[in-house]
């Protein structure tokens, strides 16, 4: 059954409506501290890698271990950069709706960039791992292999993890691409709402 709609009445009805939502469960102070804590941990891990690097490069470790460490450090560095970038809106909120739409678009683009980087880098990482395995299997002398307790099984397991991560990154990138399309559509809808 339809009734005549009256704007002023609707306004009163709307303002007197008090939806029942559950009480806030999380403590704001804790949420705020947790957000900062994650970023601080990021930086601490990065800083902690420096003495570790000094140790690895000063001791007579294998060249391949050094190469591995450099690759891992680059991953950590870029990971931290993206972590900061993607969380930026938590402390830098745009003040207008239009700004928010643009911000969402920027965030989705950052996600796509991160996914693209991960796919390329992890593929490179995977190939490096494979090359390292081949080197160990066919060129490294038996004494070193024994000393390092090298196992092809562990190596292949690592490769499997890298391949799985490439697929996850691909999936993440596709999801972000869909979200970007959606966000751009919303912005267009917002911009043309009065046309």
């Amino acid at each position, binding site marked *: 059954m339809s009734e005549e709609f009256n704007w002023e009445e609707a306004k009163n009805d709307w303002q007197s409506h008090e939806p029942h939502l559950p009480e806030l469960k999380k403590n*704001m102070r804790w949420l705020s501290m947790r957000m900062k804590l994650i970023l601080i941990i990021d930086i601490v891990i990065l800083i902690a890698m420096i003495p570790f690097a000094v140790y690895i490069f000063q001791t007579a470790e294998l060249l391949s271990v050094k190469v591995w460490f450099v690759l891992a450090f680059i991953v950590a560095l870029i990971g931290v950069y993206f972590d900061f970038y993607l969380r930026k809106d938590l402390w830098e909120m745009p003040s207008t709706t239009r700004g928010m739409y643009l911000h969402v678009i920027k965030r989705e683009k950052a996600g796509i960039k991160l996914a693209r980087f991960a796919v390329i880098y992890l593929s490179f990482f995977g190939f490096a791992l494979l090359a390292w395995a081949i080197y160990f299997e066919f060129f490294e002398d038996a004494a070193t292999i024994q000393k390092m307790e090298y196992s092809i099984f562990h190596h292949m397991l690592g490769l499997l993890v890298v391949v799985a991560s490439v697929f996850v990154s691909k999936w993440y990138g596709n999801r972000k691409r869909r979200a970007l399309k959606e966000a751009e559509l919303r912005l267009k809808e917002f911009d043309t709402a009065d046309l």
Partner: protein
Amino acid sequence: MALQSNFQQTSTIRHYELGIFGENITSMNEQERLFNDAWRQHHSAVARVVQSYEAIPALQEELQQDIAFAIWRSLPRFNQKSSLKTYILSIAHNRAISHVAKHVREGKSTSTEDVVLKGDDCPSGSLEAHRKQGRLVKGMQMLPLAQRQILGLALEGLSYDEIAEVLGITVNNVGVRLNRAKKALKQAVESI
């Protein structure tokens, strides 16, 4: 008002704020007090924003929590250029947009029949009022995001100037958009 004087104090306190990542933080206790006051006064308006953007109860809870956190973080930066209500509503609507983008939906993924409104089972005379409110919320949820947002702000009693400020559009645009949105809401409500 007591709350008003709290915010006047904030501008003084702000000089002593500690900055992490460019944000302004008053002492935690002061921030908590500001938040509690503001939340007590405006949580119903926030709940209405939540309900108009998200139909799934579990996600409503998540969105409410998100908005509360954003308000907690933004309150120390409140500069009194607008009213506190406008400020809180702008945060709420902007967080809701971010929420919608994250969940890639417009609150339409569940039937609006699922929305439980206070008083749905109320046997008293206020049943009529609750029924009307229910139709209004359902009507809102049937509209596109852009219209829902402008209507939400207008229904809360914000002026054209305030709506323009929140949305980042001109006052003229507000007039055009709002008229169109009112017509759409009328159609939606009358079709229920």
